[in-house]
């Protein structure tokens, strides 16, 4: 089993290619890999409960771990209580820990 880490910095309402991460992360999870999507920068905009058509619910249902950078959330005025179910507030320390975990492939998008 491989650990996959997607770091998603793109706003899905600006870049439709965020669907690439949704589809690839889901497919990898279905093949019994450990998959994490870490939302950072404008990527956290999709994490809002009121964000219509967010691709993140699909990922949460597939069992992908969803983390949102606290600094990026704060910059954009998004509170933890506003996050979609299944998304955990996280931070850059946690991201660094995941990056140096053995057998982890990291993809920035």
């Amino acid at each position, binding site marked *: 089993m491989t650990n996959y880490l997607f770091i998603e910095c793109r706003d899905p309402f600006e870049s439709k290619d965020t669907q690439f991460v949704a589809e690839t992360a889901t497919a990898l999870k279905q093949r019994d890999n450990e998959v994490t999507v870490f939302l950072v*920068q404008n990527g956290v905009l999709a994490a809002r409960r009121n964000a219509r058509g967010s691709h993140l619910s699909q990922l949460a249902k597939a069992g992908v771990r969803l983390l949102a950078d606290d600094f990026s959330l704060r910059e954009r005025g998004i509170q933890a209580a506003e996050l979609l179910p299944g998304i955990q507030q996280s931070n*850059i320390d946690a*991201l660094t*820990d995941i*990056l*140096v975990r053995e057998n*982890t492939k*990291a993809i*920035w998008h």
Partner: protein
Amino acid sequence: MSNKTLTLALMDPPYESANSTTALRIISAALKKGINVNVFAYEGAVNLPFKDQAPHANPVKGTTVEEEDHPTTKSFVASLLEIGKSSPLLTWVNCGLCVDERGAGNSVEGVKRGGPADFLKMAQDSTNTLVIPTK
């Protein structure tokens, strides 16, 4: 002290993208955890440690240079190189051809000159590698 090493490839020039801020945050967090960090700065990213960067006043707000306290990427990189001068070690390599194209040779102390072969060696010797491309 960790025996782990993280390599990052950066491509964005300073003051253009939040990618640079996130990259600097990752480097800082890794060094604080005792993780060695390699940076290969390519294309516009070779300007991140460019020494001639100068903070400026904000005429819109009417603030002075001192009041504005404008952060420069060269100061961030210099601080990170100070933290990572031995153990943990931060190795920052600027792509030489990219530097020459941009006239960006005057970097803060500690920045090395290299090429893609250095990046390959860094990646081979690291626990993991993260490439942060421009869009």
